[in-house]
């Protein structure tokens, strides 16, 4: 458990549910600015791993260090404030609020009760909202009710809500599920842009998409890491072909 240069260092992480080890002694390092994709068959523990990192599930053992700071004991909101953002699998946005409000609420100021009462949407907040809206391609949708957006736009909005907080580590759970071909391309470009100054962990099944975005790929199987490395190397690994990619 030494200090390191990695933005995220997961070491010997274990979690068991009633004796079933969903994550089994897993060790994973993510570099600064790296875009890591995690792939693996259903039930491999990919989403559980993200849940553990963001504090939604408590680990049974092991350590998670973010910028050398231990995360396993922190509450969810404290982990977010430390700089870890998490996007859920299904678009998780505030459907009844406008796109603008969705972004405004995500701005990292006025996070206490009385801070929120006193919060004013000042010019810097407005500028940030407009900047992020342009980034995610929703600049002309700001006054729309978020529930009326298309599925792809909802996914982008949730990414935008995370960008408002400018996290150093962004975790995305199947960001392109249900998207059209064109939307997938746009998402790949978006991820490439926002990945310039932060690390990202992406869970994805679409191999073409993974090839396009990944710096490094981690293959999980039964709560363990099966293989890790560049995409072509992983794809050629016989064990990976056996359990996941198929012959």
């Amino acid at each position, binding site marked *: 458990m030494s200090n390191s240069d990695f933005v995220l260092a997961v070491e010997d992480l274990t979690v068991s549910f009633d004796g079933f080890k969903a994550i089994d002694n897993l060790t994973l390092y993510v570099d600064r600015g790296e875009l890591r994709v995690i792939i693996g068959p259903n039930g491999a523990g990919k989403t559980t791993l993200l849940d553990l990192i*963001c504090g*939604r599930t408590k680990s049974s053992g092991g350590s998670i260090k973010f910028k050398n700071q231990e995360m396993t004991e922190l*509450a*969810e*909101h404290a982990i*977010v*404030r430390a700089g870890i*953002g*998490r996007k*859920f699998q299904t678009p*998780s*946005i*505030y*459907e*009844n*609020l*406008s796109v*603008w*409000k969705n972004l*405004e*609420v*995500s701005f*990292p100021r*006025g*996070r*206490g*009760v009385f801070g*929120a*009462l*006193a*919060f004013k949407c000042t010019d810097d907040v407005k500028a940030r909202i407009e900047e992020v809206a342009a980034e995610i391609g929703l600049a002309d949708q700001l*006054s*729309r*009710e978020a529930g*009326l957006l298309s599925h792809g736009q909802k996914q982008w909005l*949730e990414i935008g*809500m995370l960008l408002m*907080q400018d996290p150093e580590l962004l975790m995305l759970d199947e960001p392109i599920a249900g998207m059209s071909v064109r939307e997938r391309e746009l998402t790949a470009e978006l991820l490439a842009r926002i990945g310039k100054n932060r690390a990202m962990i992406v869970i994805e099944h679409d191999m073409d998409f993974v090839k396009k975005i990944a710096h490094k790929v981690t293959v999980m199987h039964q709560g363990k890491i099966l293989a890790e490395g560049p995409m072509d190397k992983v794809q050629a690994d016989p064990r990976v072909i056996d359990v996941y990619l198929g012959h």
Partner: protein
Amino acid sequence: MTKLRHWLGTSDIAGIVILALVILVVMPLTADIFRLNLIGKYLTYAFVAVGLVMLWGYGGILSLGQGVFFGLGGYCMAMFLKLEASDPESTKIQSTPGIPDFMDWNQITQLPLWWEPFRHLPFAIFALLFVPTLLAFIVGFAMFKRRVGGVYFAIITQAVALVLTVLIIGQQGYTGGVNGMTDLKTMLGWDVRTDSAKYILYYANAILLFGAIFLCRWIQKSKLGTLLLAMRDKEDRVRFSGYDVANFKVFVFCLAAMLCGIGGAMFALQVGFMSPSFVGIVPSIEMVIFAAVGGRNSLVGAVYGTLLVNFGKTYFSESFPQLWLFLMAALFIGVVMAFPNGFAGLFEDFVKPWLLGKREKKPETPAVPPVAPVTMQDDDVSKTVTTRTVDSGDAVSAPTTGRMGPATA
């Protein structure tokens, strides 16, 4: 005025002005003092309903124990009034003069120490505001930090209501028991039973109520209000946006409790007594019905709901005393099934578009009758789809279909 309009939105102002006219002008002009005092009593429940709009409508937290906080506020005020009514002169026939009559009946010979501060009005006011808030803080902190919510939270608040009722009834030497504290007469020498005092108290109550509505509206418009809505719909997203969700729930629970406390105190002043029958489970549920009928998302609607249900209660319980409880239950079920957003929701969905449509269409095409929400074939519509331009209170909302499904909320 422009600032106020910017802050509230035109339709908000219209709603509040109309309510103010009804409460401050129409009611006092049309009702005799007996009826007006009755309306004043109903309006003390409106504090609870307004609190429930924040807690339940906005925060999505259903409490079935708001009577607890109403009662605590009421008892704090009643204790002060009771002590003033129990001066040695007017209680000289007791075996211990100078203590409240129910203490004397229960062989208590000395005023308990914790009653002493209630001799002073400032302390009583402080207590009626902060005792309910403190209890709400303790219950809320214990529950919300442990992520207890939904039905479980509602049941726990019911248990609290039951516990407090049992406690008050059981400790009758200190609380007046099941009869409560009766014969409240004066406040700082001012006789609260006279007609003129009743008028003044009615207006004081109404003004406090509007103060509460403005405060809540301000909170709704702040980021905290947006967060409450966000939490109601996607709690996890709020949590994983760096907010400690429990703190916001505790806050809104405390706010609702404090409003209940004010309502309870005004009740004790206007009605002249306080008893455990306003604390327990049944009154607490009735208070939820007030908010539900009026519209749990509308502060103004909740006040109308309170008035309406209580008028109904008074009328029916005078005419058909056995039927009232059934009617009340039918009303609650009807509201939940047919229009979950209460009368305010009906107004928003049907009356308002109609009014706006009328106003806009009239100049151009006077021949065409104003079209209310376009109703599509009944068999293929089960839900109202409303397109709304968000964040402008007076924007035209254009419901595309009529008929409401049960699950629009």
